[in-house]
């Protein structure tokens, strides 16, 4: 024990010991870091607090009165279409992710591994196309939907939304995936081809397992997109039963008839928690994916 204590007192770091200014700077660093942490946590904490505060009605008030209650959650589940919105959002998000993955797998692979006529031009075109905000076509989407749905009544507004999200993401995701597949050695493909693999088999058996992290990222981003987007659902979806979470929750703070701010806080909390957990669990992958790819608006 004695030996150990002696060791502790030894200065073992290979960094120089801090001077006084260094110490002051370190303290300032901590002050800045902690105050920014507070600036982030305080509003979020307020949201959690107001979601559970039974003393509040309709409007959010900041006061010291607090009684724990779940009544806002009850309101959310019983008096609003929260569950329906969640279901809609998840369905739209899943469909978008699957469709994007299917399409982008093919394009990313083709653009990375094959030479074909018009490759460079179409890449350039794609690049420019993806810069156009999805918003630009909004007038047309509306009319297109009414035309398609009158021809095929089974085509819902949500399907339209899925197609729009997918179409908007193709260019960007193709770029990202192409970049990733480019970094995989072609020797693997060649070996597989010599063993008699077809093109799709090479993709499925060789490329896909290696590119899985990037594919997962693309799926994740396409999945999260519908959770974050407000504009398109607001424009395209007309009845509250078809709303996504973003559009639905906004009615709780914007529409006088359904105004209930604490319920919004509760709904926001329920929506945010899974997404936040996902982000924290996957932060490393998300960040590397960001740096790997190109512009992600």
């Amino acid at each position, binding site marked *: 024990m004695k030996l150990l204590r002696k060791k502790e007192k030894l200065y073992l770091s290979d960094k120089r010991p801090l001077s006084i200014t260094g110490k002051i700077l370190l303290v300032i660093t901590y002050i800045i870091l902690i105050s*920014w942490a507070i600036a982030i946590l305080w509003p979020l904490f307020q949201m959690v607090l107001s979601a559970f505060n039974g003393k509040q009605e309709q409007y959010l008030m900041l006061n010291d009165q607090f009684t724990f209650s779940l009544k806002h959650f009850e309101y959310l589940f019983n008096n609003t279409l929260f569950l329906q919105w969640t279901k809609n959002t998840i369905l739209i998000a899943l469909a978008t992710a699957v469709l994007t993955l299917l399409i982008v797998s093919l394009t990313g692979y083709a653009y990375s591994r094959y030479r074909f006529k018009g490759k*460079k031009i179409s890449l350039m075109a794609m690049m420019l196309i993806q*810069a156009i905000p999805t918003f630009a076509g909004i007038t047309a989407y509306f009319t297109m939907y009414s035309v398609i749905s009158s021809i095929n009544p089974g085509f819902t507004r949500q399907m339209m939304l899925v197609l729009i999200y997918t179409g908007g993401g*193709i260019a960007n995701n193709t770029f990202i995936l192409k970049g990733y597949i480019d970094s995989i050695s072609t020797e693997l493909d060649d070996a597989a081809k010599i063993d008699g693999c077809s093109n799709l088999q090479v993709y499925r058996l060789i490329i896909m397992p290696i590119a899985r992290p990037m594919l997962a990222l693309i799926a994740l981003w396409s999945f999260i997109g519908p959770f974050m987007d407000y504009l398109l659902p607001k424009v395209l979806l007309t009845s509250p039963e078809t709303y996504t979470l973003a559009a639905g929750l906004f009615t709780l*703070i914007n529409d006088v008839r359904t105004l209930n701010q604490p319920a919004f*806080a509760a709904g926001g909390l329920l929506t945010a928690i899974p*997404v936040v957990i996902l982000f924290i669990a996957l*932060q490393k992958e998300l960040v590397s994916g960001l*740096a790997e790819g*190109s512009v992600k608006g």
Partner: protein
Amino acid sequence: MIKGGSELISNDIELKKFKFEEKKFLKTLKANKKKFKNSLDKTLPYKAKKLKVDLFLAQEKSQFYKDYVALSYDAEFEYEQSNLLMEELPDIIHNIIDRTLDIEKALIEKKNIDPSRERKFKKEFKEFKKEHKAFLKEEKRKLREKRRKGSISKKAQVNEINILKQKYKEKIILKSYESQRKTNKEFIKNTRHEIKENTKINLKILNSNMADIRRKIPIEVEKTKPKVAYFTFLFPGIGQMFNKQYKKGFIFLLASLFIYLIAIPYALGFGNYQGEGIRGLITLAEGGRRIDKSLIFMIEGIIAIFLVILSLFLLYFSFKDVLKVEKDTIKGVRPNNWFETKTYLSEEGFPYVANLPALIVIIFMVLVPVTTTILLSFTGMDPQHQSKFSWIGIKNYKMIFLGEGLAGSVFWLTLGWTLVWTLLATSLAIFIGFILALLVNNDRVKGKTIFRTIYLLPWAVPAFISIMFFSIMLSPNGAISQLVNNIWGLEMSVKTNTTQTRIALILLQGWLGSSYIFLLSTGVLQAIPSDLYEASEMDGATTWQKLRHITLPIVLFQTAPLLVGQYVFNFNNFSIIYLFNGGGPFEPSKYGNLAGSSDLLISYIYKLTIENQYQGIGAAITVFVSIAVMLVSFLGYRSSKAFKEERL
């Protein structure tokens, strides 16, 4: 072009005779084929029967063409092909029949399996299973004991157990094969699979050998200039048929069907939902029925144009294909057969096929809508002209650029604020995020994981939730307003004061956007090799110099395209403006009735087109915004990794 060459005339006669004989031969061959088919053993498997017929044909052909090999390349080709078939087919057929016999034998055996023995085995098997399970349990117990004593680690225990389980499973499977019934069943299954796969592979080899012969033996034709391609270019598929590529021709015929049954009628106005095909683009439903909508006419016109473009592409492709085959034939190269075409398609055609779904989605979900918007910007679609509107040229653009009328003056004001917002909000977020990344990455700071997790939150919480919540908290009775009031005694009126709204928005975006930059720069900072810093320290660099000359350039260089992306994102950041204060506060004297003073161009467009139905002007502004954004992101993209490392 005729083989031999010296005795032209006598050859000519012989050739004619050959053609005549060939015709006769083929006729009798047809009849013989039928006869042979009927004489075949009915119990043979279908595939074997078919191959046997092929073999028979090959034998007959070989005999017939043998005499003419010296005369014509076609005869030589047929002869070689038949020989190849005669060489390889017997083995394939033999293989199929042999293995099928094996299966039949096994099937008979299956009937003769002694049920009492089977029952006996079942009992035995059960016993065997029980015994080994007990053994497994015992082994597991031993391992647990060892673990308790501490002689093996937890991981080793888990591994050992897994190995034992695997061994147990294998033993059970092995034992189960002692059952006759099971072995029999497996044998039949495996053999069937074997037949299928083997035949497939063998035929593939045969086909590629045949392709070799096709490549080796030239073809002779009398024409010297391609004609078919020019005569049939309007009808994809026919030309291929002329070239005797029937299956390929059939596929191209589908393209013909598409062109003449879908694209052209649609472009002419048949089968449209409301419009008149391409003509609808000009008339825009003028003088049409009351329910006819100009917008639908426009969209259908655009779709018609895209269909026509697609048709032209198909025509061109088909023409090129026929022309190439014809030219090759004249040169003496035999046209590809279906097997070769298939191989070629799966190699060279793959990228086109793979990009097809993406192309369709992009055409209908991006190109058609965007074209509609561009065309709309030249029309006078506004609240008074919703269902019928007409072309008005560049009036909308004129109005905007000259700052006249309803939207013009507001446009420039909004543009000014949009630029200020983009620059300030993005730069603030970048500044905060970068500084935080620097500070957290200081070696001496402890609790890095906690800080990083907290700083990730504004990005992870869906933005619309944070924005809406901040909007609530900054309203007159909101939490932040009251807090500021309590501490500094300031009356805040964020929602009604233009300057305050704008400052709040910029700060809020700083809060929201810094996370992303923080994560980004952290990633880059961690990847900077430390020897750079050590070397600079040796040379006596101060902290500031290290930051200025090492850290900043590296981080900026690596994240540049993404930072450009951030500016573009904020230029079009609709949600924060619309959800925070609906673009307000509103100052009708300055901004008119449509826009608020914190509206960006994008939310202004939203209000013009969706809320107030000035689609014409809105489209013009959209075109302006899109061009600006495209230019900027082009600059960002140009230096991005995916584009630079282009392998072309």
